[in-house]
Structures are given as structure tokens and as C-alpha cells.
């Protein structure tokens, strides 16, 4: 089974990766820009709806956004480094991170792109993820590795569930018709006329080539199939490899064709589903890191 030999060091590497990802996100997308946008475009979501408008008028000003941004960057750094009082620091980090992402969603809508990465940060805060590779003075790893395995397994199952839920929802709501009525080609065309980063309108070009159109219609069925059965990645090495062969190109192509970038998911796939132990072994890094096999195929 995937991750059945994980140790404190594997979980610590995952901690550094996920909190590091969020630091990268913070640097890439400075939320302080949001202070420029008129408040009329802000609609609080979920738990943030309880806060009054006067709070948002103050909170969405540039100086306060800068303070939040700086505090979150420091806390993410401390959590990623595994400082003393890790759990308390990491939980506060996750509360602020949830708030930060919620503010962004208030200007857009709740999208599931960064959600899995957010949930996994919470898992890493709750479980003892700073028992290795940390700045704590005397971290005492648990004598049994089960707790580390449980943490990585919970993160992986939750991550795969997000795919499964999308696939199941599509079949339940859209039925078989959604795969036969050419909807995916219309989605491609529709998204490509409203670009947000890339202006080439490649999705619309797909319509000009019947062979490509057919390929995308078939691809839509294949992607949905792998989404629905995502959890099999845990038990079958061959399914996991096939899943990667389908999902990674899908995520990469989604950006130029559908104007959707699943950066968080691509980065999470790299640590949760790619055979990192095999790669580390080939590069001769395994002994240096002192990690036991991360994955064992079934």
C-alpha cells in the first residue's frame, strides 16, 4: 500500500513542502493588491460572512493587508521549519491561512483549486509533523511509525477524494449526455475567449481540427474515469502510474486550453503520488536523507 513505510522524516518533508508551497503562493500572488479593488466587489464567504462590513472596510485596507501578509509569511516559515511549540504555531498559521484564502475567495468565489492544499496544511498542523527535520531542540519521534503513516495516508486519501468527488458529481449531475453532446468542446471555446493570463485562445483553435476535437471528447471520458477511481492509487501501483499519466498532462494542458491552472494539485501530486523514493535512490540521495522506502507497490 502507498505510504505504508512512511517515517517521521517523510512527514517532515511533506510539512516543509506544503508550508513551502504556501509561502511560494504568498510571494507569487500578493494579496495586498486586493486593497485596490472596490469593496463592492467583495462578498464574504462561509464563516467570514459573520463579520460586519465595518470590519472589512478596515481589514481590506492596504496597511492591514500588508500586516496580515507579513504575519502569515512569518508563521508559514516557522511552521515549515518546525519550530518549538510547533502544533500551536501551525494551528494559528492554518487559521490565518484559511482566513487569507477566504478573503481571496470573497473577491472571486470558492474554487476548489487551493482547497486540498489548505486541508493538508491542517492535517500537518494536527499530526506530529515536526518530529524530524525541525528546529525543535530534542524532538522525540514516536517509537512506532504508525502515526506518521496515518498522517500521510489521511492527506493522500483526502487529496484523492477531491478528485473522486468531482468525477462522481459529473456523472450524477451530467449523466452520460455530458460526454456525448460536445459540452467539453464548448467549455474549451468559452473559456478561451475570456483569458486571464494567456491570450492565445488555444481552446477555440481546437474546434478547427476535427481530430483534436475528438481527442478532447475521448479525453474527457478518460479523465472522468480516473477521477472516479482515484482511491485505487493507494492499492495499485499500475493504476497509480496510469492515473499520473492521465492527470499530469490534463493539469498541464488545462492552463493553455481551459485557462485553469491547478498548480497546488500538481505540486501535491509530486509528493503524494510520485515514487520519490525510487527517484531519490536513483539520484543517490536516499542515504543522505536517511529515509526508508516511501512507497511499496502492491
Amino acid at each position, binding site marked *: 500500500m502507498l505510504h*505504508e513505510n512512511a517515517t517521521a522524516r517523510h512527514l517532515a518533508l511533506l510539512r516543509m513542502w506544503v508550508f513551502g508551497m504556501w509561502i511560494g503562493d504568498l510571494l507569487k500572488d500578493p494579496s495586498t493588491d486586493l486593497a485596490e479593488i472596490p469593496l463592492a466587489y467583495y462578498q464574504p464567504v462561509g464563516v467570514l460572512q459573520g463579520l460586519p462590513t465595518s470590519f472589512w472596510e478596515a481589514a481590506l485596507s492596504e496597511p492591514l493587508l500588508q500586516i496580515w501578509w507579513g504575519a502569515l509569511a512569518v508563521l508559514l516559515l516557522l511552521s515549515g521549519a518546525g519550530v518549538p511549540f510547533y502544533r500551536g504555531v501551525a494551528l494559528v498559521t492554518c487559521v490565518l491561512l484559511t482566513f487569507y484564502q477566504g478573503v481571496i475567495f470573497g473577491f*472571486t468565489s470558492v474554487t476548489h483549486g487551493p482547497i486540498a492544499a489548505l486541508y493538508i496544511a491542517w492535517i500537518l498542523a494536527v499530526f506530529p509533523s515536526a518530529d524530524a527535520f525541525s528546529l525543535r531542540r530534542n524532538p522525540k519521534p514516536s517509537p512506532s511509525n504508525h502515526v506518521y503513516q496515518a498522517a500521510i495516508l489521511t492527506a493522500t486519501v483526502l487529496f484523492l477524494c477531491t478528485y473522486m468527488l*468531482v468525477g462522481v458529481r459529473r456523472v450524477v*449531475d451530467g449523466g452520460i449526455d455530458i460526454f456525448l453532446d460536445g459540452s467539453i468542446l464548448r467549455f474549451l471555446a468559452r473559456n478561451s475567449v475570456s483569458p486571464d493570463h494567456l491570450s492565445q485562445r488555444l481552446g477555440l483553435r481546437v474546434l478547427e481540427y476535427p481530430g483534436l476535437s475528438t481527442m478532447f471528447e475521448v479525453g474527457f471520458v478518460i479523465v472522468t474515469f480516473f477521477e472516479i477511481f482515484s482511491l485505487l492509487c493507494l*492499492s495499485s501501483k499500475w493504476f497509480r502510474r496510469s492515473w499520473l499519466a492521465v492527470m499530469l498532462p490534463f493539469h498541464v494542458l488545462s492552463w493553455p486550453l481551459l485557462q485553469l491552472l491547478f498548480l497546488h494539485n500538481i505540486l501535491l501530486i509530486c509528493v503524494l503520488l510520485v515514487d520519490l523514493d525510487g527517484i531519490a535512490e536513483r539520484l543517490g540521495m536516499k542515504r543522505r536523507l536517511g529515509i526508508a522506502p516511501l512507497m511499496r507497490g502492491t
Partner: protein
Amino acid sequence: MTLLWPVRARIGTILSAIPHRYALFSVASLVVLIGAQAAGEGEAFYPLTDFSMYTTSLLKDRHRFVDYTAELSSGREERLLIGQLFPAGGMYLRRRIDDSVDAIESPGSGSINPVAVDALDAMLAAIARKYDSLHPGDPVRTIRIWRGTVSLRDPKGSSTISRRLIHEYHAR
């Protein structure tokens, strides 16, 4: 969850060997994730949400969209990409701005709603300021909003796009 059947024994061994609070957290987090999907309220329950993407058929053959262009001080005209100007908001912020463009056009009458125009102009001012901060050498003079239509099924693709000017914002 039936798909976890082949590894149920090993998962059971791991969960039974760890402190109950961790086992409970693991199981509860999955139950909550699936429960939120069943509730299907993406906005209302954040940080919980439902997961859906391309779940209902898109059957219309023509699509209306909005294009944003800027005439710069140098006289050059270029398309504005909201995701580049506000990367934290990206495509979904653009959709919210698209909605406010829709609001300025009163359906059927062809007239312009002045209240909605003020709200849109406030946003366009923010876009112009942001563009100017990134390109101080060639600031925005005018932002133009275009209403476009495109065929979603025509093999002629991008050549089916037609567009007309519906609004202009003059930056100070």
C-alpha cells in the same frame, strides 16, 4: 470508499495503533469532506466546499463574452489580462467584473444603467492604477469594454468572433 476495500486491513492496523484523537481526526476529516459535497453549498460553508467541475452540459451554440482593452499614452492598444494585473484573483475575479459589465446593460431596452456604470468605473479605475504601477512608462489613457459573441461549435473557431464597443472609461 469501497475503493479502499483492498487495503482495509492495513488501514485498520494503522488506525488502531495510533492515539484515538488522531484516528478520530482522520476519519472525521473524510466524513466532513464528503458531507460538504452532499450539502453542495460552495459559498456558504467555507472552509468546507463542494467539488464540481464541468458537471452540467453546455448546450448553447453562441456565447456572449466581455473583452477589456486599454489604449495607452503612447497610442498603442492592448488587451488587458485581469489575471496578470491581480494574480490573487485571476480568472474568477474577471468573472465578477464581467458580471458588473452585464449589469450596465439593461436587458432588452439597450439602455445603460448609470448606477452600475459607477460601480464598473470604480473597478476600471483600480485596473488602470494597477496597470500604471506595473508600466509607469506607458500609462493607461482609456479602457474600452467590448461585448463579444462567438460560436462554440463552428469549426471556423476564432474567425466567428464578433464584438462591439459598449463602454469607455477615461483614466485621469
